[in-house]
């Protein structure tokens, strides 16, 4: 059950032009830095990226935007990136904005074989346009559909050779639900340990969801907004 690959270059084999990727992280926290770098270097293009944010100009998914490798972003908030804005205004980039909780649940649903579900978020707003509206318990809800991706790429704190993952603090964010929703899911970890090392009660993502795992290197873990007392 060994799912270990050598590095990010080996991990992203098979990611082709035009594919849909889920990329974990919230802001710059918990993003798969090594895999993003490998994608930039691979030159793969016309990607649809499902990711809560789009990075900043020179980090995270911003690196893929710089190289014009992304055709479409499916996100909840994308405001931290001037190149993003330029491409969007120039019509070079499509954006599908989704309420954050709906986005997270659509990923979870994709992994859990639930093709669609109802949520109240977005009722009465432009998010509701074209969607089925249904009243439950007197309250209107929208029908939302599951998301899956050709590849999901997640970042964890610790992982084992079976692909079991443990996230750290708020770096969990979208990684856990996205890990379940990739046809192939790649995990990069700060610390890769042998199977049997991690406490089986404390696994956030069971290895069944992970097809490839590797020990990442040189994590920058950039902080978007340092705030201190």
């Amino acid at each position, binding site marked *: 059950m060994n799912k270990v690959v050598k590095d990010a270059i080996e991990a992203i084999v098979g990611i082709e032009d035009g594919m849909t990727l889920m990329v974990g992280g*919230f*802001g*710059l*926290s*918990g993003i798969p830095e090594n895999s993003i770098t490998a994608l930039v270097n691979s030159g793969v293009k016309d990607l649809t990226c499902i990711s*809560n944010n789009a990075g900043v100009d020179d980090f995270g998914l911003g690196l893929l935007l710089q190289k014009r490798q992304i055709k479409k972003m499916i*996100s*909840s*908030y*994308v*405001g931290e990136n001037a190149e993003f*804005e330029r491409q*969007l*205004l120039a019509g070079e980039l499509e*954006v599908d*904005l989704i*309420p*954050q*909780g*709906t*986005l*997270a*649940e659509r*990923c*979870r649903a994709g992994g859990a074989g639930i093709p669609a579900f109802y*949520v*109240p*978020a*977005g*009722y*009465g*707003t*432009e*998010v509701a346009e074209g969607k089925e509206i249904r009243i439950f318990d007197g309250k209107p809800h929208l029908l939302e559909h599951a998301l899956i991706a050709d590849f999901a790429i997640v970042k964890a*704190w610790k992982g084992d050779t079976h692909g079991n993952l443990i*996230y*750290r*603090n*708020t*770096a*969990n*964010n*979208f*990684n*856990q*639900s996205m890990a379940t929703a990739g046809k192939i899911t790649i995990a990069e970890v700060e610390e890769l340990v042998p199977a049997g090392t991690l406490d089986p009660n404390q696994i*956030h993502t069971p290895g069944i969801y992970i097809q490839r795992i590797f020990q990442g290197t040189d994590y920058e*873990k*950039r*902080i*978007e*907004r*340092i*705030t*201190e*007392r």
Partner: protein
Amino acid sequence: MALTKEQIAQRIARELKNGYYVNLGIGIPTLVANYIPEGVEVVLQSENGMLGIGPFPLKGEADPDLINAGKQTVTVLPGGSFFDSSASFGMIRGGHVDLTVLGAFEVTDKGDIASWKIPGKMVKGMGGAMDLVASAKNIIVAMQHTSKDGQSKLLKECTLPLTGVARVKKIVSDLAVIEVTDDGFRLLERAPGVTVEDIQEATEGRLLIEGDIPEMQF
């Protein structure tokens, strides 16, 4: 005198009750954490996946794996917990958060809220605002009563794209505390030195003024 942002936060903090789980939005709502009254214990939720937000870290102790929904570095208090985004919004959507405080561009006398998009300006996205607005048990909006050029932001109908419909319960602006009722805005309190007439003039939506309107004390 209109309230400062700090005073808006301070006034909102008085709405907190012991035992509340509270989600504080970005901007003025974040400041509410600085004014939690003595003897009131609340737990702050951050929709990116934590309960028990503590103060900003000490200098040099910022942790890239520990941020709030505004992407600021924070700390976690004893009894806190971390969880993934779908669990976090399950918490919000399921009505387990007692109070949500957020900012707004416009609010109507029916409780509609516009807070995420200004046509012609760069679209940044709604983030978690629509989820919070649609599902919160109780929403207080922290906002300026009027725009810089004096236009009311407490309206009959929003002019900007909506974040949610008929969801806002209370507004604390720089001029007043207002409850959203079935009959419209109900004026509850005035900022110090601000008259009922000032508030009426700054409010386009239907404003109910019943009896004596007390002045806020700071």
